[in-house]
């Protein structure tokens, strides 16, 4: 364990990348997820179709492949550089890939939340003359968000764990699991304490998230 603890700065460094990846991807996938959901229930058939195709397609593709595609294909195809240094460039491509992937799950969660809203609510809103966007903004989304707080928490937890894939799929972001593998390979510290140490690190991130979202979900639950 001492050998592991003497390398604690590497562990912390790895987890700092994990946290940054998680937070930024969570933010973008939430925005994109709401947009996809709005498209999915919109009056325009084409928008509905596009959103469905995107969500179903990306959701069925392994994350590894999505990230591989971002890191090896899209970056050069679009010919844009996202940052000056390579480390930040791959970081941002990882954020894009993770957001593109996670937004599908956010969208599906929101949609199932919308499905829990009683018919009468939206019918009442329509009979008051609310338009689609007003209906969505004032009636549907606020209630839907409250019912899906718990499941959204699970999406966030899954995202936290998924950031590990960014270390391998052609991107090589220096996040926690990569540090763990490097420490395994370089024989810096015995394997078991290293694994337990990194596992505790992830549990420190994910367990409180689970409890917080569970608590929040109970607090904001819609009584029906």
């Amino acid at each position: 364990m001492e050998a592991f603890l003497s390398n604690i700065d590497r562990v912390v460094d790895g987890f700092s990348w994990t946290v940054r990846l998680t937070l930024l991807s969570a933010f973008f996938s939430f925005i994109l997820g709401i947009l996809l959901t709005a498209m999915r229930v919109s009056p325009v058939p084409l928008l509905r179709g596009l959103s469905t195709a995107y969500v179903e397609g990306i959701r069925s593709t392994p994350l590894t492949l999505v990230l591989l595609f971002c890191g090896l294909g899209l970056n050069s195809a679009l010919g844009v550089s996202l940052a000056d240094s390579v480390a930040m460039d791959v970081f941002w491509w990882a954020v894009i890939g993770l957001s593109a992937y996670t937004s599908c799950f956010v969208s599906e969660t929101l949609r199932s939340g919308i499905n829990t809203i009683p018919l009468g609510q939206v019918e009442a809103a329509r009979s008051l003359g609310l338009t689609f966007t007003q209906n969505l903004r004032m009636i549907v989304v606020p209630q839907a968000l409250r019912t899906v707080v718990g499941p959204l928490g699970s999406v966030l937890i899954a995202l936290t764990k998924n950031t590990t894939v960014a270390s391998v799929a052609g991107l090589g972001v220096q996040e926690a699991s990569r540090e763990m593998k490097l420490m395994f390979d370089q024989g810096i510290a015995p394997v078991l304490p290293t694994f337990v140490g990194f596992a505790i690190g992830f549990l420190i991130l994910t367990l409180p998230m689970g409890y917080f979202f569970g608590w929040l979900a109970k607090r904001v639950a819609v009584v029906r």
Partner: protein
Amino acid sequence: MRARRINTVLGGAAVLALALTACGTAEVGDSGGDGDEGGGDTITIGVKYDQPGLGLDEGGSPVGFDVDVATFIAEELGYSADQIEWTEAASANRESFLQQGTVDMIIATYSITDERRQVVDFGGPYYVAQQDILTQADDSDITGPEDLDGRVLCSASGSRSAHNITDDMEIDAELREAGNYSECLELLGNGTVDAVTTDNTILAGFAAQNPDEFRMVNNPFGEEKYGVGLPAGSTERCEEVNAAITKMWEEGAATEYLEDAFGTTDFAYEEEVPELEACA
């Protein structure tokens, strides 16, 4: 009733799963049937599957220089060609494969280093490669490692080559790490990175695949002694391997294998007999 049905379904699924596992792992890149295990002893050798010229999965079994060398050594050790079981040895799992005994030996562009000698034994070297740089064909600015200052350099994860340039030679190049060299080549082809660096043998194989697109700088530096990786404490086996390697060079088989692998490229491979190192 329903409980029984569900149990039956679960049981059936379990049987199916076990049957599937019993079939084992299907050979990727193996289009022919492999019924002829040959009986008796087999030897498991780890080679690369993703390095053209050295060890490449070629729709049947791996082919390349490393594979030829491995076949020769195995024959000297008393195993015929069909008693060899090939396993893919990626850079990341070479040490653990040897430590665990997953493979009997590894011949996969495995450089002998003091660091690695602490965990595994090495026979050989059977070839001494040098490090070189691969760039886009139309990039004439890079003629050697010192030109990489401020450029982006790609290397595969688990490889030390890029660190030789950035750390040991203290050249200020930026590193982009990819999963393997074909990913590096993709990044080089689309201009995300300026150069790929690793052993000239590996680069030559890739350059030969796309001669119009890539150019080898041909300014080799350093030396990478390719050893035959063996589990720690196999001194006897190491001596046998060394004898086989000596014979391979004396008979001219080694040059023949190199000619097979790189004859069509303009890579000037080393024809000098490598100096064997003592078995620990």
